[in-house]
């Protein structure tokens, strides 16, 4: 069984290069689904998000989630990259790529990983505000907890 490629890093990533790595020479892959999560400015109120993470467990938890996706659907290959550190509006935070013979497995696999990553991978976002005030830690959303339920 394929293992997902999982990276947790502070540097930005090149989604196109990662897709090429998963598809080059794979002539039986017909579908590539890519999710990219970007930092929002929340109506220009934020200068950045600061992402704290739990080194070791962050990688392990993403690996568990993506390997579970590979077990559940006929996925050819998967890459997940999650950044930490200070990230500015418009910058990339997270990348999930799932490739498969057909589109359904690629769509399901990528979405499953995002749904579980949101609530299970140990990352926390703190806001840096444009008005100079001390930023808050972003609250977890109930909708993210609910999103996991669709996979039961």
């Amino acid at each position, binding site marked *: 069984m394929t293992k997902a490629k999982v990276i947790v890093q502070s540097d930005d990533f090149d989604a196109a290069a990662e897709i090429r790595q998963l598809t080059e020479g794979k002539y039986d892959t017909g579908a590539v689904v890519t999710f990219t999560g970007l930092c929002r400015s929340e109506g220009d109120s934020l200068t950045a998000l600061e992402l704290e993470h*739990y080194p070791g467990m962050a990688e*392990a938890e993403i690996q568990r989630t993506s390997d579970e996706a590979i077990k559940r659907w006929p996925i050819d290959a998967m890459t997940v990259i999650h950044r930490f550190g200070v990230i500015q509006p418009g910058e990339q*935070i*997270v990348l999930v790529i799932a490739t498969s013979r057909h589109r359904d497995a690629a769509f399901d696999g990528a979405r499953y990983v995002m749904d579980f*990553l*949101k609530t299970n991978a140990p990352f926390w976002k703190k806001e840096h505000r444009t008005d100079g005030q001390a930023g808050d830690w972003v*609250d977890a959303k109930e909708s993210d907890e609910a999103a996991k339920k669709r996979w039961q």
Partner: protein
Amino acid sequence: MAGGENEVKILYFSWIRERVGMGEETIGLPASVETVGQMLNWLQGRNEQFAAALEFPEIIRVALDQEHADHGQSLGSPREIALFPPMTGG
């Protein structure tokens, strides 16, 4: 082990880290602390900072050796425990 205490590394993240005033420490947990929930309860009683950080223990997430653990779960003898709020990555 003297006094029945087990030395263990505890990590704190996000606003729990800020409220307890440190990112990690090594402490001895009393042998009477058998579950994750009992550990949270015991930590809360240590001092004012811990009381504030763990005021609502039901929302605190705990990982034992980098795996999520329920509050009812037996603590066992992990090398590493982590306390953190609900996650907001992605």
